[in-house]
C-alpha cells in the first residue's frame, strides 16, 4: 500500500503505510526527514506534517489506529501551549510539560529502536550457522535407591482397611472376604487343579485342600471345582469310608477350551 504525500519541495515522496506501525515510528521518520534533533523539536512543523500524513490516510479511506489519533491530540496540545504567553505556562507549573514528556518517551523508544537494529545485525550474522539434528538416543531410566519400608506398606494396607470398614460400616472381615474372593473363586481352583493334573494323575482332596493350611473359602471353592469337573466327566471321585480322604483321579485331559466352558457354567451358578 502506497501513500503519496506532497512535500513543500513539491517532490512527491512515496511512503509505505505499513512502514509505520505506530505513532513513534512515524514521528521518528518525520524527525529524520527534517534532520531534527529529539532535544530540539520544531513542534509546529512536525505536528503539521504528522496531521498531513493522517489526512492522507483518511483520503485513502484507511483505518487510523487510535494510537495515531492520541498522538495527534498530544501534538496539538503541545502546539497550543506554546502559543500561550510564558506567564500562563508558569502558572500551570504543576502540570507536567507535555513536550518534555513526549521527548522522554521518544528517547525511551529510540533506545529500543537502536537495540532492535543491533539484534537484527546479530541475527543476520548468526543465521548462517547450521546445527546438527540430535541423534535418536533413548533415555535409560535409573531409579535411585530410595529405601522403602515394609511398615509404610503395612500402614497403607491398614489404612485402607480402616477406610473400608468406615465406609461400608460392616464387619471388618468383609474386606478379607472381598480380597480373598477373587483368589478363592471356583474359577481359580479349576485352574489350580488343571495345573495339578499336569504333574500327576490323581490327588487326595483333603491333603491338597487342607483346612489347617488353607482358608475355609479356599477349600469350599476347591470342593465345588472338583464337583464341576466330575459333572463334566473329567474326574472320578472315590471315597472308601465316610471319613476317608476323597481321591480325585483324572479321567481325561482337561483342554483349555473345555475349562473355559466349565468356568462359564460355574459363573452362572
Amino acid at each position: 500500500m502506497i501513500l503519496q504525500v506532497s512535500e513543500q519541495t513539491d517532490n512527491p515522496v512515496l511512503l509505505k503505510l505499513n512502514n509505520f506501525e505506530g505513532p513513534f515510528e512515524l514521528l521518528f521518520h518525520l524527525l529524520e526527514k527534517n534532520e531534527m534533533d529529539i532535544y530540539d523539536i520544531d513542534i509546529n512543523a512536525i505536528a503539521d506534517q504528522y496531521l498531513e500524513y493522517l489526512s492522507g490516510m483518511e483520503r485513502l479511506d484507511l483505518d487510523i489506529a487510535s494510537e495515531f489519533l492520541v498522538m495527534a491530540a498530544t501534538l496539538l496540545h503541545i502546539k497550543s501551549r506554546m502559543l500561550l504567553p510564558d506567564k500562563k505556562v508558569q502558572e500551570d507549573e504543576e502540570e507536567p510539560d507535555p513536550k518534555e514528556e513526549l521527548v522522554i518517551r521518544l528517547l525511551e523508544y529510540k533506545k529500543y529502536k537502536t537495540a532492535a537494529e543491533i539484534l537484527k545485525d546479530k541475527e543476520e550474522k548468526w543465521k548462517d550457522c547450521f546445527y546438527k539434528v540430535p541423534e535418536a538416543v533413548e533415555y535409560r531410566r535409573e531409579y535411585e535407591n530410595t529405601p522403602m519400608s515394609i511398615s509404610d506398606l503395612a500402614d497403607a494396607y491398614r489404612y485402607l482397611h480402616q477406610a473400608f470398614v468406615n465406609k461400608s460400616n460392616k464387619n471388618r472381615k468383609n474386606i478379607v472376604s472381598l480380597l480373598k474372593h477373587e483368589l478363592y473363586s471356583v474359577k481359580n481352583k479349576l485352574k489350580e487343579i488343571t495345573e495339578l493334573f499336569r504333574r500327576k494323575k490323581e490327588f487326595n482332596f483333603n491333603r491338597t485342600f487342607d483346612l489347617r493350611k488353607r482358608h475355609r473359602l479356599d477349600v469350599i471353592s476347591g470342593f465345588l471345582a472338583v464337583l464341576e469337573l466330575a459333572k463334566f466327566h473329567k474326574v472320578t471321585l472315590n471315597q472308601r469310608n465316610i471319613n476317608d480322604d476323597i481321591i480325585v483321579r483324572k479321567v481325561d485331559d482337561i483342554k483349555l477350551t473345555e475349562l473355559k466352558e466349565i468356568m462359564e457354567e460355574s459363573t452362572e451358578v
Partner: protein
Amino acid sequence: MLDQKTIEGIIEAMLFVHGDPLPLSKICEAIGMDESSVYAILESMMKKYSASDRGIQLRKIKDSYQFCTKQEYASYVSKIYVKHISQTLSNAAFETLAIIAYNEPVTKATIEQIRGVSSDSSVTKLLERNLIREAGKLDAPGRPVLYETTEEFLRCFGLSSLDELPPVDTLLNADKK
C-alpha cells in the same frame, strides 16, 4: 583458491550438518574440486580424527563419508542419557502396591473396589518402576489383567519373599488398639 585447511573445515561443516553418509561426488561438487584431490584430503582427515582429543571419527562407507562417535567414548556418551528417578511413591501408589502384595495375583477392578477410586495411574507408575508386573489374565468376562509384585519389589523393600510381609491378621488386629 582454497587452502587445504579451509577445505578440511568446509568438509567437516558439511558432514556435521548432513549426518547421513555424504557421497564424495557431492562434496566435490560443493567445493568445486576434482575427486582425486578431495579424496586425498579426506584420507588425511581420517588420520587426524584418530587423535585422542577427537570424539568423532570419519568413516568411509562405500563412496560416502560420515561422522560417528568413537566406540571407546560410548560409555561416557550414554551417561548423559540416563534419567535419574528418585521420586518416592505417592500414597495412592503405596495403597495399590499393598493390595497387590497381599493379594496377588489381583485385577485392577479389585484394587479399585478396595480403594474406592480409579487406580490406573498408580498401576501405571508401579509398572514403570518395575515394582509390579502383569501375571496373565483372569479367566472371567473381559479377561482382565492380573498383577503381581516383582523381584524388584522384594529388593526395594528388603524382603526375601512375600512371606516376610506382616500377616494380614496381625495388621487387622493392630487397629483394634
